[in-house]
């Protein structure tokens, strides 16, 4: 943690500027004359005027999503380490990288968001103003992601989104200054839906457990919409607050609803608890469980309740047989942290690698240039094959992996929780870019 040590203090320029502003009563920003000819925007070029570039990371380290947040953080740390040392894997994704990004060593600060938008915005504002963060990241909760989207757009600092499953993140709440690598509600539904229809048949009845915020609502909506095309109906949709202490009332409603399939959209600890209690109330004996948006570590935390359960995910480590980059990542991650990475860490790592790639392509940290590099839509490598970012909504078009929980007897080792059922290519999954009303906004 010592390398997180942050050097503080406002530059003399900033102080003079403030002085002028206060005395003058108005705040006409006095643009400093810098060597580069690009106009200053956000934390550029102030944030990269030295030999380092700073990244602000806010992940939940307490609260409902703490477990997933810590995992995500490990992915970020590994990526930064690899970028700074010019690791082989990074070079595979970002060929122009030698050491650091554009020769600048990456520094970072970590703040606990507790999956609360307020905490995240507060921390990132600090990173931006104090540390001149050139890029910010965070997520695990889509509410946080959406809030940071807006912050990024206002502050003109690029936001490379962490885990966020809401359609809105690159839908109606999309921004020019935000990009997202991972899969989300609509893609999850489009990928897992056909498999559910194949496995369970048409015209089934589904009950939903939905967390009460943007992620839950959009994932549930996407699932309902897709399954309706196969004649599925919804018997009940139980909307629970984030961090609900007990699901018994919800589950009784589910148990008495006569559904065939329980679609659990809850995430993090909520998913673990609601699944455990669903088992206790006999719901899992009556209906099939589906987890459309896979929760890292849920198999371990529920102690085997995922057996036979279908889930859609960004990444599962056993695909390493097909994808050499995944194998390299798994090895590097396991060496450093002692366990197989889950998709939170994968998303974190790949997002940073892609960002490094885009900066190198742009040849500058200047945010509009980096954004334009993303918007070229160039095909680039990831751990699950080639992907690209859509210029219209800044969403990465990438495959979704469908897994099914293994029976205990079939597990080859203690982390062999899932079979990979199918790797669904991203192209056919995704809604049209304008389907969710995305308006990216300005570059400046």
């Amino acid at each position, binding site marked *: 943690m010592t390398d997180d040590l942050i050097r503080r203090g406002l530059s003399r320029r900033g102080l003079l500027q403030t002085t002028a502003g206060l005395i003058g009563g108005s705040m006409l920003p006095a643009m400093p004359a810098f060597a580069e000819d690009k106009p200053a925007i956000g934390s550029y070029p102030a944030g990269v005027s030295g030999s380092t570039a700073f990244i602000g990371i806010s992940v939940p380290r307490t609260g409902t999503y703490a477990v997933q947040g810590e995992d995500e953080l490990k992915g970020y740390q590994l990526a930064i380490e690899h970028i700074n040392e010019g690791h082989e894997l990074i070079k595979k994704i970002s060929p122009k990288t030698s050491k650091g990004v554009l020769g600048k060593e990456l520094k970072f600060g970590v703040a606990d968001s507790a999956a609360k938008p307020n905490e995240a915005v507060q921390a990132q504002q600090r990173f931006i103003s104090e540390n001149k963060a050139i890029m910010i990241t965070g997520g695990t909760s889509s509410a946080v992601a959406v809030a940071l989207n807006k912050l990024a757009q206002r502050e003109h600092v690029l936001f490379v989104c962490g885990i966020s499953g809401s359609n809105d993140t690159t839908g109606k709440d999309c921004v020019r200054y935000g990009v997202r690598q991972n899969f989300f509600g609509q893609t999850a539904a489009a990928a897992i839906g056909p498999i559910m229809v194949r496995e369970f048949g048409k015209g089934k009845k589904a009950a939903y457990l939905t967390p009460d915020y943007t992620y839950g609502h959009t994932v549930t909506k996407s699932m309902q919409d897709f399954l309706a095309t196969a004649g599925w109906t919804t018997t009940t949709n139980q909307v629970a607050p984030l961090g609900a202490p*007990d699901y018994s*009332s919800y589950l009784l409603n589910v148990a*008495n609803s006569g559904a065939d399939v329980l679609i659990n959209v809850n995430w993090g*600890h909520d998913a673990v*608890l609601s699944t455990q209690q669903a088992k*206790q109330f*006999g719901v899992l004996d009556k209906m099939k469980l589906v987890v459309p948006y896979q929760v890292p570590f849920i198999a371990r935390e529920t102690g085997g309740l995922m057996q036979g359960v279908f889930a859609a995910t960004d990444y599962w480590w056993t695909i390493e047989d097909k994808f050499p980059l995944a194998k390299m990542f798994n090895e590097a991650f396991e060496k450093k942290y002692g366990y197989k990475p889950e998709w939170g860490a994968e998303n974190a790592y790949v997002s940073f690698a892609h960002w490094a790639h885009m900066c190198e392509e742009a040849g500058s940290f200047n945010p509009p240039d980096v954004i334009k590099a993303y918007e070229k839509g160039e095909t680039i490598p990831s751990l699950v094959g080639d992907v690209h970012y859509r210029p219209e909504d800044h969403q990465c078009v990438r495959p979704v992996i469908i897994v099914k929980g293994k029976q205990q007897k079939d597990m080859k080792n203690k982390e062999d929780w899932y079979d990979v059922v199918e790797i669904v290519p991203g192209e056919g999954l995704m809604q049209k870019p304008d389907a969710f009303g995305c308006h990216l906004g300005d570059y400046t």
Partner: protein
Amino acid sequence: MISWPNLVSQLFNGLALGALLALISSGLTIIYGTLGVLNLAHGAMFMIGGYAGFVTYQYTESFILAVIAGSLFVMLLGIVMERTIIRHFYHRPHEDQLLVTFGLGICFVEIIRLIFSSQSQLVPPPAIFQGITNLGFMFYPTYRLAVVGIVAIALGALFIVLYRTRLGMIVRAGIEDSVMVDSLGINVYRVFMMVFGIGAMAAGFAGIVNAPVVSLTPGIGDDILVQTFVVVVIGGVGSFPGAILGGLIAGEIISVTSMFNPGYAYVMLFAAMTLVLVVRPHGLLGVQGRE
């Protein structure tokens, strides 16, 4: 899901929720009634009971031992807390008592978070209570059924202590008239210490008994604390029967509202509390006494 079977299920579930709330609230209310201190760390004690039981279970794999250890540990914690800190606050204003217990509650939660991290921890129910029971009209987790019984026994034990022992007599007298007890020549401080210990134990016991129902996280006591306040306000501050009645009412309100829309469960709970405050400001079974 509005249907008769579901209503019956929810009514039953309300009873189970309510029984637990009643137990935790009775601990809070007897401490308050006797000592005049509202322990805002009560939720944290509930949580610590769960964790103490969890640790014991890790080492012994015995649920019974976990329950005993969880309860005793929290009782001990209560006694230590009373002797070292709370005692110095009897003669300070109520606000200070609230502040210090509030602060202690935060410290407890954060210490547990430091030791066990935020990851949820599991205590499985004892083998005989695992699985599901078919009640005819519904399936219900066997252990939750057992919890109703266990809590009823615990409340019975508490009743005996309060209504059949000398200590209980003093406690109840103190709830009605604290000045009188002072003048009886009883070593009030010893009584206070024991009451604080017993009240804390009720929370700790509830914590470990509840642990197999939900998984343990450091923040588990915070929500419960607020609910126990509502229970106590509905039932009447300082009233043991009030805590039981209030607990059951609260459990039913939460559960039955959940049938229509779980999102409104707590809103309805607080609406009920407001109604009680307007109609019977001292709670359903409360007496005009301490403020």
